[in-house]
């Protein structure tokens, strides 16, 4: 079970253990973090936006055009760090991954 270090929108840091094969969005949501994930994981709304620590970029899958397009439209887009957590399926290689939940768009 990979461990994740999550910074929530209030800036508090918490470590969680999650089941591999879930998506990051599912893991954060089920742990009660403050993400809305309004579209339910269909890569359609950008309300599960997170910033991934640069050191972990190498373990992430490539971004689809849909994800890229939604993130670029977000007020809190950070090139190289922004991802939609519904599009990231957790693997054992992500053990220790650090991330911050992005602020909500207006």
């Amino acid at each position, binding site marked *: 079970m990979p461990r994740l270090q999550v910074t929530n929108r209030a800036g508090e840091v918490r470590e969680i253990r999650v089941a591999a*094969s879930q998506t990051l969005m*599912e893991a954060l949501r089920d742990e009660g973090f403050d993400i809305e994930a309004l579209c*339910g*994981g269909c*890569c*359609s709304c950008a309300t599960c936006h997170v910033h991934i620590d640069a050191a972990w970029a190498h373990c992430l899958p490539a971004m*689809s055009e849909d994800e890229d397009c939604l993130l670029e439209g977000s007020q809190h887009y950070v090139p190289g760090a922004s991802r939609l957590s519904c599009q990231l399926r957790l693997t054992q290689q992500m053990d220790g991954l650090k991330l911050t939940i992005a602020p909500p768009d207006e």
Partner: protein
Amino acid sequence: MLQAPNDIDFFTDYEVLKDPYRYWDELRSIAPIVELKSRNMVIVTGFREAVEVLRNTEDFSSVNSVVPTQSLPFTPEGDDIWAQVEAHRDDFEMSSILVAFDGARHAAARSLMTVLFTPTRLKANQDYMKEVAGGLVAEVVARGECEVVRDVAVPYVTMVIADILGIPEEDRETFRREIDKGGPSVGSMEGSPEDQFASFMFMIPYFMRYIEERRANPQEDVLTEFANAKYPDGSLPDPFDLVANATFLFGAGQDTSAKLLGNSMRFLTEDLELQRRLREDRSLIPAFLEEVLRLEGSTKSTHRLAVRKTRIGDVEIPAGKTVIVALGGANRDPARWEDPWSFQLKRPGIKEHLAFGRGAHTCVGNPLARAEIRVLLDLLFDQTSEITLSEKHHGPAGKRKFEYEPSFIIRGLQELYIEFKPK
């Protein structure tokens, strides 16, 4: 816990089934969570409290989400009945469909579906949507009038789902004919839960054959992708699980989308000024639809079973209690929505409405429903100069009559007769 007045039953009172909103307001004025004493249930009409339940998958199971009125198939023991629910899962009515799954099994089944509704997939589907909608709209506009749910919405959404799943052209008419025969809405007073899904059973042999054929001889098509999709752990689904998913998509995505179109048309035909604004500025259609979803979303309630002793807000909920989450009630909670009964375009935070639920069971087809309605309204506006209600069927302004489905799950007009002024 505060209790609801005893004289009205949410599941059987015909007036409440047809118009739940005043009843929900009355309950919410007592408390956002109240007990229905006669049924060992609580009903949640507060927005914050509804979100709390929908997001809490540790303490609430979805096993009873379609048939909340069933008795537990066991005697609950203690403050944690998860193990009992799992041991008796197959004894619950309608527990074999996706919306009744929990936990990892639910997430795995759902992962096969989310990929069907991404923006790229829907864009690929859009030309077909326009083609089908264009044909249906041209036909009814030429006639000058129609009953929009049966004549347009049902065949349209049926054919669109068929396209998303890649059903071969030669079989689509059969699907349409079978579905057109119709059946009662899910959660209806009319017919059993099995009857309500029976009209989709004819599909099973078709999908079994598609999956066998595409697994044996992969082609460059959507069905091949569907037949060979893998679970997140890399395993290949049992064909029957895929068939269940496919039939579920028709069952869940058909009535709800069709009713949503009817509900949208009612707003547009009762407020011609609003219709004119949308005609002139089509970019307002999505904002219009979100407000329709809030006020008249086509799923009025969903249900959960408390499987552990827990709390909603500060109210204690014992294990074994059934929870009715009144989505349409939460969507008119004045604690969340200013002047909740009024129709307002572009409310702040409108997309947080609960018409599609929230959390693990958020309606997976929500991007499709939004695209379907947008495409259809756009085409209707293209081909007409005005759409009005049929006074012959619904009466004159001020004395309108509308019949809604007598269902505790579906909120939708049984019929909506409209007339067209051509361009």
